């Protein structure tokens, strides 16, 4: 049975729809063809990224990182169907919850990201817009740029991007948020490595390659 499809987000690469899938609400993430690439190249890229993203979601789940459950993959239309997480992004939620809850959420995120890094996976686009909160339970999304990596450099970029995202949208609470995150992160990766990562993050920042949203 065909049901109504509702466009809820349009990114540079993919369109996100909410629709009914076997009687339950589900998310359709569809990578859209780009006219600036010749079809042979465009098809290959969308196909490869769709399967890569699904694979990364599967891999991080094994490490104890909550992600929406994948229901269906269609490489021909570069589509992933996944469970609908009914909640706001962490970025939105942080605006409206009290300080102790802010701390609690960021601490949980630290634990999740710590598990992911310990397991040798980096997210590649680590912002609080790519974390959903369903009644306090956090889910990570958008693994299109994710990769297998144990490099301190790559993990440092994840932390830096997250720090930047917190700074640019939650300026007044930024230190509280990031400290809570690091507490959770350190509880998984250990004091020594946590310190090393923090140091690396500052070093990458000094190079001035990553900037705040204009």
């Amino acid at each position, binding site marked *: 049975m065909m049901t109504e499809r509702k466009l809820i987000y349009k990114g*540079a690469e993919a369109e996100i729809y909410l629709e009914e899938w076997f009687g339950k609400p589900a998310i359709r993430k569809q990578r859209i063809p780009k006219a600036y690439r010749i079809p042979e190249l465009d098809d290959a890229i969308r196909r490869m990224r769709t399967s890569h993203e699904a694979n990364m979601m599967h891999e991080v789940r094994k490490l104890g990182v909550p992600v929406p459950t994948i229901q269906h993959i269609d490489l021909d239309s570069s589509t992933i169907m996944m469970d609908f997480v009914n909640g706001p992004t962490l970025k939105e939620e942080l605006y409206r919850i009290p300080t102790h809850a802010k701390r609690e959420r960021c601490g949980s995120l630290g634990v999740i990201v710590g598990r992911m890094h310990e397991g040798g996976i980096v997210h590649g686009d680590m912002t609080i817009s790519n974390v959903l909160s369903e009644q306090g339970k956090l889910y990570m999304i958008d693994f299109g740029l994710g990769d297998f990596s144990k490099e301190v450099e790559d993990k440092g970029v994840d932390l830096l991007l997250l720090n930047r995202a917190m700074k640019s949208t939650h300026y007044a609470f930024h230190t509280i948020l990031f400290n809570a995150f690091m507490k959770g992160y350190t509880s998984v990766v250990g004091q020594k490595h946590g310190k090393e990562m923090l140091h690396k993050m500052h070093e990458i920042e000094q190079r001035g390659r990553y900037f705040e949203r204009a």
Partner: protein
Amino acid sequence: MQFTIVLYCLGIESTAHTFGASVVTDRGEILSDVRDVYTSAPGTGIHPREAAEHHSEVAAHLVSQALSQAKIRASKLAGVAVALGPGLGPCLRVGATVARALSSYLQIPLIAVNHAIGHIEIGTLTAGATDPLVVLVSGGHTAIAAFSGGHWRIFGETEDITLGNLYDMFAREINLPSPAGPEIEKLTQKSTEFIALPYVVKGNDVSYSGLLTASLAMLRSGKRLEDVCYSMQEVSCSMLAEAVERSLAYTGKKEVLLTGGVAANKALQSKLREVARLHDAMFYVVEGRYSGDNGAQIAWTGMLAFRAGVVTTIDQARVRSKWRLEDVEIPWRNDDGA
């Protein structure tokens, strides 16, 4: 009685293979633009010392030609601007020496210009953009930049070699003269087959070194040169187009400006035009004759800096071969492009 005062600025460019001299006015008129390009033998790249020797030989003649074509005497100049970087040390030092001498002899201010900022400013002047997302492509740069808070900020760039490097290094291996972009673009017209090559986009960044290696390997394995050129151009330009699209979505800019030597590439132009269209942005390209390195880009940027009070002294005017464009303070622009 009323006077209209016009300011004149001489600009000197010598960062790589081109020595250029130009006179512009503070109204953005380019009164002269002369240059001479050092060409290396096919199959070889720029030899920095030989290029510097070339520049030394042509410098005096080109500077006087720039003044005579502009029909002004040296004593009328308000300032002399020079590209102090980024570029090849020996080449940069020729321009710097000429500019320091002129500044000292004529007793006029010396203005240090960043070559990359020059590409951006001549692009906005000749194409008419006001607050663009800039795509700077040349032998020395492959960068995506937008203006914010007094500086041009890099939103994406190459992690290894530039788009110009990719074409020139490929050309060198097959004995074509550099700069080789136009020659490679001609060859693509005769292609009949697309060959899959590595497509590497990391966020807003691109990486071309693997593409170079793979393209050369395809050639050695017996693929037709035309097909390798076509595939390499398709993949390299599509990668940049995707990185530009991400940066455009991220910054929300409503203009895209393509500038620098590789801006003349028609395939890249058409891809970026499509990216701009997808995001309801206007698309601009630097005027053709100012895409490659030239004195006018230095003269005009020098004029903007001079009017904003940015001048240097002879002892401070040292060359900076690795001068990054985001390090330059830009007091003559506002965030809204005014």
